[in-house]
């Protein structure tokens, strides 16, 4: 089965159900399928051949979904692009993957001239409106002129209408439509890189389909589910929401306004969504800076959290407010397409801090440096195998050899497995700070800091130090209206941590620098910009 077969199957099973809602627009599975067919047909007549890369610079929208599936149907490789990147970084990615086709939303028109100047491989630009590419030899074709009538989206099954429960028919992984193989490259997702283009993670149809089906199983998604999508589709977690809901016939409710949390909460209530998926910072903002805790969210069945470890303190706050909902703590990597583990909600209370057990179809082992399994309770690296493991990094043979050994993905995450088989992450292999000869887990210090009631967000990194080798730097956001000082924070840490784990540098900031995905930009926190100056030590 290929990724677009998920859409074809669902459009046959539930043609009139709404696939995607975005503000006042909706599209059914049948319309989405036929519109993507029409666009795919147009793409086949362009100067591109199957396997060519197609960059997609669209924010979450009906158009994004349509373009993504059309590109795959035409045999192209989708390269979803981080819309928050500057023209320079986007140009480097497009050049790195040698993109031939570029889908660009008019909203980002200001970036086009500069990024297209460097992307000589691009032959065609398709946009949602008439835009200037800044190049005489390159004209942008408006999407409407290709889609014609099919761009008028039909409405059916408005939110709130009871749908009969329908069981998902088993999907046969070997059943693939058209030419090509499920083992073909389907998409390249560029991971956050502090320099250059970052790394392009190559995922096959089989990688993404198998992982989507496994995720549908453990989340028990049905066609009656609908998820509020605030995570961008270019981010692998957002892409997982897209594919799992197309696979199960559920509805994607897009809202790109998380910068206004109250609007998001209103959408959750108005659209009666059954699921909400976020990264730790989303939950921190909702719990700390909105009316989230006072909302009933009657229709909501579950929350999912991934995209980095959420502090146990935050999980407990979420449980205290919404303990009657299912809370799925999950772990994954772009390289694993992406889900690796899930923590069954019924075990959450007793296992707070664990990332749970392997998702269906995925195998996890905890290895020592010689690639041998470590005993229960001992620390080793999480190693993943299964149909979800990436094909490799685009044009990075050295990295591939380091990360993919014997067909297994070496995640770089250090963990222990308990007697029940549950995995507990203790830190990143490369994020262990070596300070004064001691190995210190940044995660442990972050968790300690987040348990302090004055602190909203905290991130810990190691920075070069003449005496210690590496010094511990904690970058902290205090809660609204609260004040603190370096001395107070260090005294607090001293009470709860061994002396060598107390951060030498405490930096107070009004917000942590984050990628659009919500993950903290740790490389930036290590730079001089975040060195603690004397005048910044009290806020």
């Amino acid at each position, binding site marked *: 089965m290929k990724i677009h077969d998920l859409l074809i199957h669902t459009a046959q099973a539930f043609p009139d159900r709404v696939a995607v809602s975005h503000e006042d627009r909706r599209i059914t599975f049948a319309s989405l399928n036929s519109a993507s067919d029409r666009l795919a047909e147009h793409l086949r007549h362009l100067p591109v051949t199957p396997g060519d890369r197609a960059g997609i610079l669209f924010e979450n929208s009906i158009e994004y979904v349509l373009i993504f599936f059309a590109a795959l149907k035409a045999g192209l490789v989708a390269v979803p692009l981080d819309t*928050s990147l500057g023209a320079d970084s986007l140009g480097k990615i497009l050049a790195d993957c040698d993109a031939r086709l570029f889908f660009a939303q008019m*909203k*980002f028109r*200001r970036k086009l001239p500069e990024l297209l100047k460097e992307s000589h491989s691009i032959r065609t630009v398709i946009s949602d409106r008439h835009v200037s590419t800044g190049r005489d030899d390159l004209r942008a074709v408006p999407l409407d002129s290709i889609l014609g009538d099919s761009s008028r989206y039909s409405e059916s099954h408005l939110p709130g209408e009871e749908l009969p429960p329908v069981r998902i028919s088993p999907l046969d992984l070997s059943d693939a439509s058209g030419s090509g193989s499920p083992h073909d490259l389907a998409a390249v997702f560029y991971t956050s890189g502090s320099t250059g283009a970052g790394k392009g993670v190559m995922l096959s149809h089989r990688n993404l389909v198998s992982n989507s089906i496994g995720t549908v199983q453990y989340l028990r998604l049905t066609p009656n589910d609908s998820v509020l999508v605030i995570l961008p589709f270019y981010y692998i977690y957002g892409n997982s929401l897209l594919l799992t809901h197309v696979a199960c016939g559920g509805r994607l409710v897009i809202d*790109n*306004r*998380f*910068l*206004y*949390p*109250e*609007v998001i909460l209103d959408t959750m209530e108005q659209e009666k969504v059954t699921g909400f998926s976020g990264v730790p910072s989303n939950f921190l903002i909702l719990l700390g*800076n*909105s*009316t989230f805790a006072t909302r009933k969210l009657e229709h909501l069945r579950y929350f999912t959290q991934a995209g980095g470890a959420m502090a146990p303190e935050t999980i407990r706050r979420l449980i205290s407010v919404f303990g009657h909902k299912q809370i799925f703590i999950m772990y994954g990597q772009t390289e694993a397409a992406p889900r690796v583990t899930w923590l069954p909600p019924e075990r959450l209370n007793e296992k707070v801090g664990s990332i749970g057990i392997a998702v269906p179809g995925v195998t996890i082992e905890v290895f020592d440096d010689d690639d041998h399994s470590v005993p229960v309770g001992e620390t080793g690296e999480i190693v993943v195998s299964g149909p979800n493991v990436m094909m490799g990094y685009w044009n990075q043979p050295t990295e591939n050899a380091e990360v993919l050994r014997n067909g297994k993905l070496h995640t770089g995450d250090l963990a222990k497995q308990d007697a029940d088989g549950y995995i507990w992450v203790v830190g990143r292999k490369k994020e262990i700070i070596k300070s004064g000869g001691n190995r210190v887990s940044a995660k442990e210090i972050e968790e300690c800091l987040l348990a302090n009631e004055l602190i909203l967000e905290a991130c810990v990194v190691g920075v070069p130090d003449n005496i210690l080798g590496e010094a511990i730097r904690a970058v902290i956001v205090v809660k609204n209206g609260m004040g603190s000082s370096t001395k107070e924070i260090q005294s607090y840490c001293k009470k709860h941590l061994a002396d060598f784990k107390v951060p030498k540098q405490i930096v107070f900031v*009004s*917000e942590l620098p*984050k990628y*659009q995905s919500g993950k903290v930009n740790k490389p930036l926190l290590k730079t001089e910009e975040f060195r603690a100056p004397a005048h910044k030590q009290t806020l």
Partner: protein
Amino acid sequence: MAIDQTVLRKELRQFVTDSFLIGDDQVVFADADSFMKNGIIDSTGVLELTAHLEEKYNVTPTDDEMLPANLDSIDNLVNFIQRKLSGATAS
């Protein structure tokens, strides 16, 4: 404290252009245009904008005032700031 509306509009437009468009005067937007829909301000930008309101006008939006209706265009900002300065409840 009252601020002349024309001056306020001009100051806010200047701030948005300087901070988010990095002086790109090619970008034309009307006072009623949404910052979000036109790709002018992202989530980080909203925090920068609210910090500016606090510093320059001593106006601090509460959690439930963090709404597009208050912050997502020059028009909305002008109305919001004036309501806050006059002591009225913002939407």
